[in-house]
Each structure stands twice: as structure tokens, then as C-alpha cells.
């Protein structure tokens, strides 16, 4: 684990930088993720070269090294869960000492403002706006998910 150098995905995604966040669009799954400041910093440091310890060191927090590493693991845990790492299967054991995310959060000492967070949505298909049209029966057109729509 000490030599594990995580790498975030660089293919089939679009990344939009915001002042202190990142928005990542996963084209494979049509999922969109918002990385808060800490998660965004971890993301940019996950180049496949830096180890977890080095990423923790370069995060720029005032945390003890072990706590900073835990922050990195919390971010990686979410990246892995959302298919944002290059590795199909992160090295086992992925979490240090098989800790749960909750345990890792407790270990950092509940510094909520520092916690990496990844919020996600599924990008809507265009016809998600479709809703029942009074007086009409929608027909299967075989043209994607378009149906009888209303506005």
C-alpha cells in the first residue's frame, strides 16, 4: 500500500474547473460528479506517479501526516466507488486496515470543512422531460426514448 500511486481517469471524461471545485462528466456512464475543494485537490494530484503519502503531503493542510493520508483515502474511496480511477480494481486492502469510510472520518477528527466530498447525478436523457399528454397515447417509435411529450 505504501507504494500505491493512484491515477484518476483521463479518458471518456470531461473535466470543468471551477474556482474551488471540479465538475467531472463521465461519458461512459453519463454520470456527473462535483468534487469539493479537498476532493478536487486530491484529484489533480492523482497522476499515477505520486504515492498516497506524497499526495497527502502536497495537499497543503495543517493536518498530521496520518490524518492527511486518511483524507486522501476518503477521497480515493469515493473516486473508486464512482469509477473515477484508472484501476479497475484498487489494490487490496483498499482501505487502510479495512476501515470503513465512517471510521476514516472519525480518525480525521471530524474536520468537516476538510472532508473530500463527491456529489453525483445522472445526466438526464433529453426526453426525461416527457410527461403525459392529455388526449394522446404515446407510441413506441423505435427512435430512442422519445415518446409523446409535453411541455
Amino acid at each position: 500500500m505504501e507504494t500505491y500511486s493512484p491515477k484518476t481517469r483521463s479518458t471518456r471524461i470531461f473535466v470543468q474547473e471551477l474556482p474551488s471545485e471540479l465538475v467531472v462528466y463521465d461519458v461512459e456512464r453519463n454520470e456527473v460528479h462535483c468534487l469539493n475543494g479537498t476532493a478536487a485537490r486530491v484529484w489533480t494530484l492523482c497522476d499515477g506517479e505520486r504515492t498516497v503519502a506524497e499526495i497527502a503531503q502536497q495537499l497543503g493542510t495543517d493536518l498530521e501526516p496520518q490524518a492527511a493520508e486518511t483524507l486522501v483515502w476518503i477521497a480515493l474511496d469515493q473516486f473508486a466507488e464512482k469509477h473515477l480511477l484508472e484501476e479497475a480494481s484498487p489494490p487490496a486492502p483498499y482501505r487502510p486496515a479495512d476501515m470503513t469510510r465512517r471510521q476514516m472520518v472519525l480518525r480525521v477528527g471530524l474536520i468537516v470543512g476538510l472532508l473530500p466530498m463527491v456529489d453525483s447525478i445522472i445526466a438526464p436523457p433529453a426526453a426525461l422531460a416527457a410527461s403525459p399528454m392529455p388526449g394522446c397515447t404515446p407510441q413506441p417509435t423505435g427512435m430512442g426514448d422519445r415518446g409523446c411529450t409535453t411541455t
Partner: protein
Amino acid sequence: MRSVSTIESERSRGSAAGDMSAAHLDRIEWPLSLSVMAYGVSIGIRTNDLRVTEGLAGHLPPGFTSAEFFDTGRVYSLVVEEDDRSGRHQSLVYVNGALLARCSTLQAGLRAFGADVQLYVAEMAPERVFVHAGVVGYRGRGILLPGRSFAGKSTLVGELVRAGAEYYSDEYAVLDSAGGVHPYPRPLLIRNGRNPGATKHQVHTLSVGAGDGPLPVGLVVMSKFRSGGEWRPKRLSPGRGALALLANTVAARRIPEVALATLHQVVTRAPIVTSERGEASSVVGPILELAAQA
């Protein structure tokens, strides 16, 4: 004009719907056919019943232009047919030969046609990003009210217009690459009731002048109606705001990179607030106050 009973008998023979439709359409005469362009997207339209022309314009995207019929790659066929037995008419809407909707009245057929056309244009427009949202102008800036059907955005837009805001849209925020919002001034329609089966009616008393140019976005309000809901706006971070807007973006899947870049222009300039709300009239004042402060 062919009868409904004939169509049904063809269907009952088990022919594929598309094949049946194409063969059916080939035998129809089209006294009216034309092409329409809106927001850089072209469609073809043809109908076997000239009564369709009376209501057609009201169901097309605002600012459309028309031309002689040509193959645009997407052709709508509006077919009005009479049932041999009942004598009642029904209207059928086809897209490229495939049956899209079977409607009991001509008006319902036109609504189904219009909804699909507008959604198609919103998805395919080459230089604009369409977000499901009501939009008003206020003090030189746009207020975006994202939400899908039945979120109550038309009602809220109506109340804001009554309070002095300028009408821009009750359906789509049309954004350019700089984040400016353009008018989409179709007639303001307010649903008669909140159930999904309720139809919308034009509110003639609100036939005010629409905005005529792009505005920078000054405020985004993500709100959802709940009876008795309290207005407690919380500000979203730009990233979460981008997610909220993307969840209402028509072409999010087709052009994600363009959509993200466009929304970036909005969320880095305008505050985005979220709250549940009660009746629209109760939040108009607070929303305009927020917009004035932004």
C-alpha cells in the same frame, strides 16, 4: 383519407409498426408540406388536413422561419383520420415514418407535435444550450427558475411578470456560450391544476412584451412547490449549482463538454439558491429582492 379501422386491422396482422406506418404514409396525399428552421435546426412538416395550419405556428419554437419542403432528416407527418364507424376524428403524429402519438383530437395532436418539435430543437440546437427553466428579466439581468414539467415554473414566471419582471420564457432558458440568456417567448401557458393530466391554457392577461435580447444571468432559483412549503433559500456552491442546472439541461448527454462550459459561465457569475416554496405569489417578493442584491 384512410380510416382508423383500416389501420387497426393492419396492426392486428402483426406488421411492424414502423413498416406499417411507412406504407401507410406513402399512400397519403399531402396538401401542405413545408420546412421550418429554428435555432439552427431544420425540420420538415406535412399534413393531410389543412385545418392543421390554423394552429401550427403556435406549437413551433419561437422565432421560427419557414421555407419550401426539403428533406431535413427529420420529418413530422400530421395525419387526421376519420373513424368509419364512429365518425370521430383522431390525429396521428409520425416522426420519420414512425408513429409518435395517437391523439383523440386535432388540438391534442398539435400539442404532441409541438412538444416533440420543441424538445428536438432544444436538444439539437448547434449554438445554444437549452435548460428546462422559466426565465424573467429583472433590472437588466436574467432570473432562471430551473425545473421540469409540473414543477410550477410557469406559475412562478406568471407571478414574477405580474410583479414587474420581463417575460423571457416559461419553458427553456436558452443560453449562449458566454452565459447570456436569450428569450424563448412562446405564449405563457399555465396548467389548469397540478395533476399530470391537466392541460395548459394561455393566460391572455399576461400577454406582455417579451424581452428582446440576451441578458447576463443574475440569479438562479432552484425551487420546488410544496403545499405549505417555507421559503428558506440556501446558496449552492458553483459546482453543486452546475450539477443542478445540468440535471435540467436538454442536451446534457449529447454535448456534455459544451453544456459544462456554458453552465460554467453562469455558475461563476450568478448566485444559485435552493429552497422549497409554497404558493408562487408568496415568494415573488423574496426572489426579486435576492435578484436586486445579486
